[in-house]
């Protein structure tokens, strides 16, 4: 299934990756249902398309900005907007405040995964004047919401599994499904994760690795990301 209808010569693997990711958004997660996961994506879109609000303002407290009968809790909506529009302002205290409003630590991780993926997929479409990926019909089963007792909060704010690799690839390890989606997107849009450090010279599609890293670093700096 194609994600985009366009005359632009989008690489088939990239197009297919975006279609697959949209399909994964609509499936039942560990902590959120398919309906809720698609609502997370919709909320990313709402946050991006709205008139910008200050980082310290909560959209759930601004009249008319968020539907009163939203399927997501207010804390999730507020987190989605903040992560989408002001990622460089996030602090450990802010994270604790979101959990303190009732979001389970592992549900937070799953939500972050979906929010981050939606930001990547939609930025791509918007920058190339493409229609955003159409959202599929959600699956109807309920998430089992069973935590993993082996997860621990060690290096990150969030619980992580004891896996090897760069810290950013450990960040979503509490919810392996989201780490798999991260891998699908990064392999199509950046560098295959297996080549991340082992192959620093090969071209990545039409770009040299140096060009890839300039774009990655410039974008990260614009987003005020220290990591």
């Amino acid at each position, binding site marked *: 299934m194609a994600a985009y209808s366009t005359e632009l010569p989008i690489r088939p693997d990239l197009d297919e990756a975006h279609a697959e990711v949209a399909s994964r958004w609509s499936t039942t997660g560990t902590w959120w249902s398919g309906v809720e996961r698609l609502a997370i994506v919709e909320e990313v879109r709402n946050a991006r398309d709205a008139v910008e609000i200050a980082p310290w303002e909560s959209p759930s407290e601004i009249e008319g900005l968020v539907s009163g009968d939203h399927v997501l809790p207010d804390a999730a909506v507020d987190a989605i907007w903040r992560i989408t529009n002001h990622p460089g302002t996030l602090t450990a205290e802010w994270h604790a405040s979101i959990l303190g409003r009732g979001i389970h630590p592992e549900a937070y991780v799953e939500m972050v995964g979906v929010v981050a993926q939606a930001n990547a997929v939609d930025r791509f479409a918007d920058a190339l004047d493409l229609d955003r990926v159409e959202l599929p019909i959600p699956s109807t089963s309920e998430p089992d919401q069973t935590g993993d007792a082996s997860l621990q909060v060690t290096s990150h704010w*969030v619980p992580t599994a004891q896996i090897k690799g*760069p810290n950013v690839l450990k960040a979503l390890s509490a919810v392996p499904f989201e780490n798999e989606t991260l891998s699908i997107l990064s392999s199509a849009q950046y560098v295959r994760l297996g080549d991340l450090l082992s192959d620093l010279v090969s071209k*990545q599609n039409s*770009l040299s690795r140096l060009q890839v890293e300039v*774009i990655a670093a410039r*974008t990260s700096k614009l987003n005020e990301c220290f990591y």
Partner: protein
Amino acid sequence: MSQDSQVSFEAIDNSESGDGGVEHGALLSRLCEAIFEEDKDQLASVKDKLLDAAGVDVLIDAVAVSANFYMMTRIADSTGTPLDAGTVEPSAEIRELVGVNSFTSRREAQT
């Protein structure tokens, strides 16, 4: 990264400083800025320039890479991801040069 080229961090710092030894470096940097600013006129202009200079495949792949880092930055910054222990020393000079040490998102590696 490349054994036969000299590169600098100019194109990472901003698009006005030059290519930094990377082919189309300043133009790619300007593309990143236009995507970030979401200014349609600015974005259309830089896309046209990149199309003329490097072609449509480079434009699409460059947009894809930049978009990917709207994911990576949000994952890192919303999970409190710290620097990797092995990168602290090697990246110290780079971090100073590109001016990221004052970011709110600064989290040191845990020892």
